[in-house]
């Protein structure tokens, strides 16, 4: 056994390092619950910003919701927006500093309920920003109430008998709607429940930031996520529940590949 311990000591050596936390993530312990997808997505954003070398140009906009404190963890400039208004705040930043890199980080309540108008119109203007959308089908911060993306039959604090379409309407596939808008350049839906998904999601986030650099329009990355506390499952069960229940409603993949789709638009004559 001591032979193994000695061997490990040998291996744990800077020259053998293959993965270490991004230098853009500070040492604060994240306030998220154990297993929360937010932590993974935060890390991916930090890694992408670091790898692209754009820390000094990037301004993040955090939402109201669980990710309100995103600004505590990633070492870039941040603005904290009012509930749902992150796309408007990001528009303001980007319009006066078009040379900077601007992204919003929003949950389903923020982006797809209270901020629907700001979301749609920012994308419809083709704002050159990145929007990261965490969809976990529930309101985490306020204690597990129904979100616009809550599944039919899903139990939440405000749908104790399950979401009922007669009362509550339908789960909102806002990403599909946004993909219809000419201003949207890149629209994709990802997840982070296993290593392969995480690596794919990171590529998507990187692509989104590259689209911004190319000034092609809005780059929108939905990440189908878990909320163990809200779903009242442990993190491993949450991932399984997400795969079984969320993915049929919110299928993964690219909805728009990165070229701005303004073909077929009609302009008045003369």
């Amino acid at each position: 056994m001591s032979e193994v311990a000695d061997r490990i000591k040998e291996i744990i050596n800077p020259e053998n390092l293959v993965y270490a936390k991004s230098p853009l993530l500070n040492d604060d312990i994240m306030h998220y619950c154990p297993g929360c997808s937010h932590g993974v997505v935060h890390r991916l954003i930090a890694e992408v910003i670091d790898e692209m070398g754009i820390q000094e140009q990037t301004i993040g906009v955090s939402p109201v919701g669980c990710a309100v404190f995103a600004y505590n963890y990633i070492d870039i400039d941040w603005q904290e927006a009012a509930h749902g208004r992150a796309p408007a705040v990001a528009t303001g930043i980007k319009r006066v500093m078009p040379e900077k890199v601007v992204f919003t980080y929003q949950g389903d309540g923020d982006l797809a309920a209270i901020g629907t108008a700001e979301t749609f119109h920012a994308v419809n203007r083709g704002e050159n920003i990145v929007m990261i959308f965490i969809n976990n089908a529930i309101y985490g911060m306020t204690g597990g109430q129904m979100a616009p993306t809550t599944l039919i039959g899903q139990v939440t604090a405000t749908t104790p008998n399950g979401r009922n379409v007669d009362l509550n309407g339908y789960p909102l596939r806002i990403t599909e709607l946004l993909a219809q808008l000419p201003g949207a350049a890149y629209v994709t839906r990802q997840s982070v429940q296993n290593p392969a998904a995480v690596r794919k999601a990171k590529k998507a986030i990187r692509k989104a930031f590259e689209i911004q650099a190319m000034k092609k329009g809005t780059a929108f990355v939905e990440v189908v996520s878990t909320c163990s506390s809200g779903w009242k499952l442990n993190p491993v069960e949450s991932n399984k529940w997400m795969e079984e229940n969320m993915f049929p409603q919110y299928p993964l993949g690219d909805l728009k590949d990165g070229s701005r789709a303004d073909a077929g638009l009609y302009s008045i004559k003369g």
Partner: protein
Amino acid sequence: MGELRLMKGNEVIAEAAIRCGCDAYFGYPITPQSEVMETLMANRPWEDTGMVVLQAESEIASIHMVYGAAGSGKRVMTSSSSPGISLMAEGISYMAGAELPCVIVNVQRGGPGLGTIQPSQADYNQATKGGGHGDYSLLVLAPASVQEMHDFVVLGFELAFKYRNPVMILADGVIGQLMEKVVLIDQRPRWTNEQIAEISGTWATTGKSKNRKKHVITSLEMDSFIMENNNLRLQAKYDQMKDEEVRFEAIECDDAEYIMVAFGSAARICQKTVQIARQKGVKVGLIRPITLLPFPEKIIAEYATKVKGFLSVEFNAGQMVNDIRLAVNGKTKVEYFGRMGGIVPTPDEVEAALEQKLIRG
């Protein structure tokens, strides 16, 4: 002396914004101030000064675009009219809480609700007592002429950055639609990145360079003791505004037995009323608060021991009159006269009210 022009109040807001080097305007059309954005768009300042002009999808979006751009250390403004300002209330509170400078113009119309597109001053309480949530104060300037519409945009930005606080220009439909001569300032350049670094380099989110800590624009603080301290810091700032920024005009008050208090276009009417009353031998003066917040309470308190009474003249149900009563503190009579629903009273009507409510009453 700058260029002399005949212009509408709303157009002058736009012209002054461009000329003073404003970086961005975000707005949404609403009567009676739509000419502000129309004038900006017609002037195409993005070609000359680089100023951004953007029509947002709502007043809510407008104020939060202002938030984002102001957080970048830029000089940013919006304008609207009463119902639109109500929609902005949340964002204004956030800006005050996050200590972001900006200029917000409210060309008031009558309410409540959709109300009327005719002029009003019924947003006095909204502007001076909050409107949004939390313990915050704006700095509120009340223009009474087209010239002041111009001057207060320039002054508004100076004050907004002096205090890192939103400044409201509380105009009304009369001043917005009025055409008068105005002297325009010469074109000033927008701030360079170096100037912004010098002025707002300790807080603006312009991208975190290696040699400084990250900047975070937020009004949020979970620790109650720190949050109380944040509030105390804001209150100290508001106290400083009270000490340094009170502005008013006192017209024929030296020998006055009665004083009218009125702001904005109501003060223009009262100026004529002073003449009419004095022709009849009644010694009447006028105090015109130029800053509604901070309110010129000291000058009113001083006159409270000298005059037989005050008449507050407002295009509303009597809002500023309460601030006058607080300043007078029972030392003399305080009455109110006003019209609502978009009706602008005549100087004779005010004179009759003065006689009925103060002199004979």
